[in-house]
């Protein structure tokens, strides 16, 4: 067992973990943040995407011990009380989800995309989200949602 200190969604956690424990399992099993889901655990689907120090990572491809001393933000940590994050609001408004299983990872990756490129073209959005698979929606409305969020200034820092 190894002791780690991780800030998850703004709350400090100190935990004993097995060195082989994946970050996603730490978040789900130990911290209780089950909003971050597992679609493949082989880093192909993006369902488990979270932010590590503000940059997106696939949390099935990071060990919990690698998060020691760092800050993790999950889908459950981006709303401001009752107020949805502008990206959440955009996914809601644009019907950018059906089953919703890809949604937490898709939203976290979309925020990261806009942080890098606040005004992406449609093509840049499609390529920027290529590592996040959605089996339900055909992606059309997801692209629309990211465009709406970009319009609301998410990547420019005014999106909250």
């Amino acid at each position, binding site marked *: 067992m190894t002791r780690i200190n991780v800030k998850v969604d703004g709350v400090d956690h100190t935990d004993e973990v*097995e060195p*082989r*424990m994946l970050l996603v*399992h730490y978040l789900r*099993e130990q911290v209780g943040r*089950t*909003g*971050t*889901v*597992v*679609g*493949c*655990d*082989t880093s*192909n*689907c993006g*369902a488990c995407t979270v932010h590590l120090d503000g940059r997106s990572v696939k949390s099935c491809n990071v060990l919990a011990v690698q998060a020691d001393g760092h800050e993790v933000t*999950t*889908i*459950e940590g981006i*709303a401001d009380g009752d107020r*949805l994050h502008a990206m*959440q*609001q955009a*996914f*809601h*408004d644009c*019907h950018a*989800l*059906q*089953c*919703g*299983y*890809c*949604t*937490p990872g898709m*939203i976290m990756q979309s925020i990261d995309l806009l942080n890098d490129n606040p005004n992406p073209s449609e*093509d840049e*959005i*499609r*390529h920027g*989200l*290529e*590592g*996040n*698979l*959605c*089996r*339900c*929606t*055909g*992606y*059309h*409305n*997801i*692209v629309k949602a990211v465009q709406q969020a970009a319009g609301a200034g998410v990547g420019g820092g005014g999106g909250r």
Partner: protein
Amino acid sequence: MSEPTGPTLLDPVQMGRPVGRLDGRRKVLGVAPYAVEHEAEGAAQAAMVASTVPRGRVRSIDATAARALPGVLAVLDHTNAPRVADGEDREFAPLQDDTVWFRRQPVALVVAESSEVAREAAALVAVEYDEEPAEVGLRPDSPRLYTPEKLSDGSESDTSAGDVEAALAAATHVVDETYATPYEHNNPMEPHATIATWHGEDAGLGDGPVLTLVDSTQGVHAVRSSLAPVLGIEPERLEVVAPYVGGGFGSKGAPHVNVVLAALAAKALAPRPVRLTVTRQQMFALVGYRTATIQHFRLGADADGRLTAISHDVLEQSAAIKEFVEQTGSPTRSMYAAPNRRTTHRVARLDVAIPFWMRAPGEMPGMFAHEVAMDELAHRCGLDPIELRVRNEPDVDPETGHPFGRRRLLECLRRGAERFGWEEGPRAPLSRREGDWLVGTGVASSTYPANAMPGNEATVTFEHGCYAVGIGAADIGTGSWTSLTQVTADALGVGLEQIRLGIGDTRYPSASVAGGSSGLSSWGIAITAAARAFREQHGDRPSEGASATAGMPDNPDLQEYALNSYGAHFAKVRVHADTGQIRVPRMLGVFSVGRAVNPTTLRSQFLGGMVMGLSAALFEESVRDPRFGHVVTQDLASYHVAANADVADLDAIWLDDDVETHLNPMGSRGAGEIGIVGSPAAIVNAVFDATGVRVRDLPVTADKLLAGLLPQRERDHVLGDASA
């Protein structure tokens, strides 16, 4: 004239509005619990051990090392697992004997304190086998081919009318080709998963549940009715819960072996809950897939392109452990007019995993062959592919002679042609080039039967000024939480805010599965009946607690009409002249599916289905090891599904004033599958138009085009030299 007998239609007030999905907020917040996100205090984790041989017997299992691992709670195998009460369905009788039916069949189950320990221990279980020779490949000369009694849609294996051979011999134009579709896996994004809790017969709960399954399923009641007899539990005492489901596309339409294993483990560890998540890799062996098909398609036509013969002979496979027969030839029976027609199905039961429903089972592969064959015929007749379809439009259902409810295929084709900018006339392959890219367009028809499944019941209760409506239906992403609320509001004549819908739980009355594009139809029929019964019994001013329950009224129209949805798919493709790379810059679908109960969720269903069609056309293929029959492309890195950047301009529309008057009170027909039917053919036909290369086996990949593109490339080369 006969009396009008169809369902009495509801007045659409809430129906037809693009109501935002009611579960949307929970889902964007990440607080909608899928199966294993449910609380389960102290749950143990299970991991499966898979067989490494395709056929034979387990000689010995040595779990000493696994049991010695700290944190391991139990290792179950056929010598010590709890017994099932009814093992007739062998998919539901795991760990009951030593028989191995296919490679990757579970032969042991480890339960441990954590998933890490469970997985490590599973790898430590040493299994020895007495292997037997296996047959794992689908071949036209397979000794295991037989004629199945029925197809999985309940129809006959073979049908025949007139004299197909004579008609083909006399035909002016003939298409006689073989088409093939690959093994495909559903791959919903949420892996199949279960939390099982065995409370026991005498847990002090009176007649409370003996077993609770929080499961990822398309039908809680289907899980109950399938597994209660297997586990020897009274159906009412098997509780199944599934409020949110991360997609299914058919694979979650019935329980699979993993659910039984979770239940057996929970019984062994009672009362401790057990979580069993099927890994993405294991999904390629345990939760169903679309069989590969080899389809011999023959069309005969006269000089004008009128069909004289349609012949569709299907070879496909099933599993030795359990039969499942894809209804590949079914749509051919009703699609186009021709006096001489036949369909046949031959199936080989191989030593492989069990195939099952995958979005539009039968219609998807069958209509791929049919619609590519039609494109080939149009080419041979020198006709516009749409005109060919116009000339072969039947007046009545060719199979049954029944009138069609409302068949608007030609309107879909015409409306689509207009919107897409379809250039009329016969296709002229290889006639458009933009730089290095060959450009082509293609069209294909689509159809899907309008289904309403029996066995639905709903309850309406007046509580605190609201109407609580319960039915054990499912929302697997289709939007039923929302659309059923709209239906219920109109059935009761109240606003959405007065409806409290309850689904996804066996505490609500019996409901059929979310499958076969039948969910909204079937559940809506029962909900409307319950609402009408409620108003009859309690009027417009019900007292607190007033309640009514009703099932599905008889609908004689179902016997008298052929009820189907229709659609037209248009695709534009670009093929790189040197590399054969294929891009699909545009797809358009035009559909006739009856009333749009919720235009937002409906459109999303169409778009998602079309992209799954694109995915099938270009990417999806489960590659089997020819020695052992297991799938080697068993993750999302090697089994490709369409990603965001594979999609471009995507559009789905539907016909106005489309109300189905024969099926249900909503006037709808169902839309979950029609997007994937025909769309692969439209893309393949567009590839032919672009390149002149006809690909008859899915998926269309660059290597299948390169040989045909070679002459073109050589021409370019020579021209390039000449102009230098």
